[in-house]
């Protein structure tokens, strides 16, 4: 479970995030929409513990994110561009990062994770420097899966992915949510947000100005709402 309580962040007098209150329960996919600079990445960075909140608290499973806390053990993160080690192949990168998190998987398990993330078996042992952005993204998903994290934070994960890969990605997210994970995704992709999310939020100038379920809203309606809101 992921929670923000009056979470605020100011950068040199500029409000990047203002009193954010939200929670993403187990099995939920929360998609946060907003323009560039709206505060989506700041929110993710606060949950990752990469920056210090000006006020309020970011909580993971009830524990406040702060230096020395163990909240990272419950988190997996998929950035917009997954940066990995170019001189290791996909399988080795996955094994390396999962070992770094304290998980030892067999080669078969690692292969399975990569296949689950959508990476074809023939590509597993290719050098990462030959991978496309989409392929790297899939390794990033496999890394997140390998950690067996309860909370997954995603920052524009489908940006630059082809429609097929985006579709595969959506399926994986749904599977993860069905398995009880809490997913928080910052995105510009309104169609994908409606498709994958269980809830959506719209952020403007650091404030969460709209939050609702996706059950009764179509992509077109959401687009209208988004354009009206921002």
């Amino acid at each position: 479970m992921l929670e923000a309580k009056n979470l605020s962040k100011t950068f040199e007098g500029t409000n990047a995030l203002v009193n954010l209150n939200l929670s993403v329960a187990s099995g939920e996919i929360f998609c946060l929409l907003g323009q560039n600079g709206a505060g989506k990445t700041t929110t993710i960075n606060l949950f990752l513990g990469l920056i210090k909140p000006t006020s309020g608290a970011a909580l993971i499973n009830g524990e406040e994110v702060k230096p020395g806390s163990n909240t990272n053990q419950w988190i997996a993160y998929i950035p917009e561009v997954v940066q990995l080690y170019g001189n290791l192949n996909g399988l080795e990168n996955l094994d390396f990062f999962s070992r770094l998190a304290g998980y030892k998987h067999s080669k078969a398990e690692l292969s399975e994770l990569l296949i689950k993330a959508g990476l074809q078996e023939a590509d597993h042992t290719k050098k990462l420097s030959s991978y496309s952005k989409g392929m790297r993204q899939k390794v990033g998903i496999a890394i997140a899966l390998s950690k067996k994290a309860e909370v997954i934070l995603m920052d524009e994960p489908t940006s630059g992915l082809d429609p097929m890969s985006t579709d595969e990605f959506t399926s994986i997210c749904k599977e993860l949510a069905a398995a009880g994970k809490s997913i928080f995704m910052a995105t510009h992709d309104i169609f994908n947000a409606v498709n994958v999310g269980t809830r959506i939020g719209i952020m403007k100038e650091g404030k969460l100005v709209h939050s609702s379920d996706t059950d009764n809203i179509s992509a077109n309606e959401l687009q209208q709402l988004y354009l009206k809101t921002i």
Partner: protein
Amino acid sequence: MYKYMFKQFLRTNTCKLGLFLVLILGVISISIGKQFLKGQERIGSHVTEKQLEHIQRNVELHSEDIGLLLYYLKFAVISEVSPLAALSIGQKDVNPSVQSVSILTLEGQKYDSDLVNPTKLLFGNLDLSFILLYVFPLLIIAFTFSLKSEEEETGTWRLVRIMSKSRLQFLLAKLSVRVILLLLAMCILFVLAGLILSIPFGMAFLAFFVTGLLYILFWFSLSFWIISLKRNSSFNALALLSIWLTLVVLLPATINNFVVTKYPVPEAFTTNIKQRDGYHQKWDTNKRETMEKFYARYPQFESYGYPPEEGFNWLWYYAMQYLGDEESSKESEMMRTKILQREQMSRKWGQFIPSIHTQLAFNDLANTSLSNHMYYLQYLNDFHEQTRLYFYPKIFSNVNGKEVDWSQFTPGYFSLSSKVNFRQIFLPLIILILIFFGLSLLNMRRESRVY
């Protein structure tokens, strides 16, 4: 995790090129050391052979006049070269390992050494100690300067932070991969050196190895401290290269300049003048006065009496020669003291400057230091006196040269087997390693407490 850290690092061109370079240079340095040892052995056996020939030839020519015979005869003293000298040639390239001296005044003969190729001196010796002192630190810098910053600059650091349980452990693991690889390269070079140079595995070799190891660890701890300052790769590289230049080139040169200025040795010149005057002026001094001074020092020869004032006499001639040394002995001692003071001052500074300390320790262990040469010169003094005292009665009573057992006059050997002072060698390096490593850990821990 270690497996992939090794894989990842070993696949980089920096690692491949760096290790290849250090191993090739290391092997070249060992072969240079081998050449040096061979040269020393060749000189040693040559001297023994030539001394025998030299004595035989002169005995044939001058056996009837032993005073004249001893005027020509020279006796060699060989400073034994330890196989470790091949690893650290030190002062052996300028200070001779063999001195052949007659029983005439010694002072001038002490510095009458072999010709040295100045071009070779200009470039110095590419021995293993050079590789350890100069090349290894450069490689450590190349391997570590971007240990953390490359992760930040290539974007992997964010994922590492989120995935790893401890950032410090991650960086320590990365550092240890580089430490292990470079220590492995060093071990390979030492094993090769041991085998190629037939170095006996004793305390000195062990101490040499551990000193090299500690010096390498010092550079790793220093690099880790710079890394812990959390700057970018360019800053780290620039800072580390500046430190390398300061520690390995600038400070040793500055300290050398300082000690030379602080302890000038005009005695190098005045000793020579005093010794020459001490001897030459005796030609114009009456013989009795000269003999009285000689007998005051060696009363055991007083029974040979006083030679007549007119004409030449070997007893008087050798007394004059002796007085040349006697009258320059104060200057000679002063020169020795000042040279040792220079050495002591360098050692004092060296405790705080690892490059100087390590070089001095290597030279000490290999018996190629300046102090080793000073002991050799002291031994040469004693050898000269013993030889003189052996021949004086034979000259003074004009024994036939053929009656002397010349077979006993094989070259004298000087060897110094000093005990290895582990504490003195290792402690300064250990303290510096602990200081820099401690500071690095403090910085890293401080970082882990902030966002």
